């Protein structure tokens, strides 16, 4: 009986998500241009992947992006939580709605907004020009990746905040009262009460934001397309380029497999650390 309820959904999931993944693995052992007959080359794509500067560089860029999508976003969200430990501002729902908004806007749209903000004569440079700090943010080798990283922080910090806030509202007030009786400072309250209680939320936020950083296709494709000089090239962009522009479908699939493995590994490690902390 149960299988009757499961079958249609499982069919969609297996056909359009799970089997294509196995197909990706299979194709990664081939040299194939997508049109003519491909041929089996075993692990050659993976060997090349390990030595190719462009591909290795793309994974390094992704890891740097994690710092912004995950690290900076979590720090901002924790700052917001910190000021809420000792305050009950009215209209918190309104603030929450505004801060979460970036999560709902299509990344293609976000990309247009930040291309404008970072433009040579855009709002950011208008503010920085009098100080002599104006730059070609997305065109400069040194600033393109960090500039996109901050867009990532902008996209994810609201998600982190909303999840932390929901977790914080479950923390018993008595824990804070006890800390205050002992004369704890705001920082100590954070360290002793809030952070340990938010361990689950922290694990979820780190997992979700890290995965978002590792994917980041929409943002990069719609801003720099990997430029300038390959400085913002990431694996997801290389997958599409290899498959549909360079005619290297097998290589694209090999990059895809490695990206998937990294994402699964990240999720596993963060969940494990979260679990271990709980039993300690």
């Amino acid at each position, binding site marked *: 009986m149960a299988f009757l309820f499961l079958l249609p959904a499982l069919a*969609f999931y297996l056909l359009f998500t799970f089997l294509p993944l196995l197909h990706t693995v299979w194709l990664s052992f081939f040299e194939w241009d997508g049109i003519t007959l491909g041929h089996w080359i075993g692990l050659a794509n993976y060997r090349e992947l390990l030595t190719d500067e462009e591909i290795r560089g793309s994974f390094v860029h992704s890891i740097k992006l994690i710092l912004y999508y995950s690290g900076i976003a979590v720090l901002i969200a924790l700052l917001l939580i910190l000021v809420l430990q000792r305050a009950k501002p009215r209209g918190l729902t309104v603030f929450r709605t505004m801060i*979460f908004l970036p999560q709902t806007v299509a990344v293609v749209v976000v990309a*247009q907004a930040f291309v404008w903000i970072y433009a040579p004569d855009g709002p950011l440079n208008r503010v920085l020009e009098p100080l002599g700090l104006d730059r070609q943010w997305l065109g400069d080798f040194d600033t393109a990746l960090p500039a996109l990283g901050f867009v990532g922080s902008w996209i994810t910090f609201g998600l982190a905040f909303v999840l932390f806030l929901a977790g914080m509202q479950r923390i018993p007030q008595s824990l804070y009262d006890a800390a205050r009786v002992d004369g704890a400072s705001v920082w100590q309250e954070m360290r002793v009460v809030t952070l340990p209680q938010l361990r689950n939320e922290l694990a979820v936020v780190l997992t979700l934001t890290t995965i978002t950083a590792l994917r980041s296709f929409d943002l990069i494709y719609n801003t720099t397309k990997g430029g300038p000089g390959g400085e913002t090239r990431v694996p997801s962009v290389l997958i599409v380029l290899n498959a549909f522009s360079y005619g290297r479908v097998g290589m694209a699939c090999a990059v895809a497999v490695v990206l998937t493995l990294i994402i699964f590994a990240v999720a596993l490690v963060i969940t494990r650390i979260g679990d271990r902390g709980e039993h300690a």
Partner: protein
Amino acid sequence: MITRRDQWTAYVVLGLFSILALYPVLGILGLALHTKDDQITGFALPTSFSLETFEKAWTDGNFATGLWSSFIVAVAVTVVSVVLSIGTGYAFGTMRFPGDSVIFGLILLGLIFPYEATVIPLYYDLQAFDLTNTYWALILPQIGLSIPFGTFWMRAFFRSTPKSLIEAARVDGAGSFTILVRVLLPQAKPALLTLSALIFMYTWNEFLLALVMIQDPDKQTAPLGLSFFATATRAGDPTAVAAAAVIVALPVIIVYVLLQRHFIRGITAGAVKE
């Protein structure tokens, strides 16, 4: 024991980051309300209110087609995914059967799954069936991608319904299907609305799949149309790109403002449990 100072600190910090969150969205709206020939400064409000730029973007970017495609795809994906997730959620939430935890684990894997990794074989598979350049190429895979969260979400709902309710109906001689339709679903409206809102948003905003599957301009989704329009127009007329961006974002922002509680509940409850 809340001091005035702590209270004001909270207002200032929350306010500052709210502005930061809103600025790019409002900024691009402001830009769109200008025309190409206006002197545009970062923070100035438009001197004259004009929808001229929107008309230009709407026609040149072919957004009537884009919004229509996105609407069809998003509605189809949402409806089918929600119906199928009711089935899986019901099975996992109320029944025990051999292999249930293995199958559930397999489905959960889909929650963290990067579909960047499957889009290539999917393209060649769908091409073999002549399905690229059709709405099917967008609808079918996105149903598959929505099943994991939908299953997870509806399972949590069915587990939270009182067992006694199901028992009572069973004693009255109702079968599984009748119990689902007559007893459980009438209570599921809020959960279903939350799930629908989230799937609709994800589908509406989707970009990569459309980029890979659709070459025919008449089948372009709104985000894909925006991407092409921006590449072609950005240098000549940034205001038109801004207007196009607003057109693409607006439907989801309206849904979000109307249903914001559902969005936030869906994200928080969905992400944190288990």
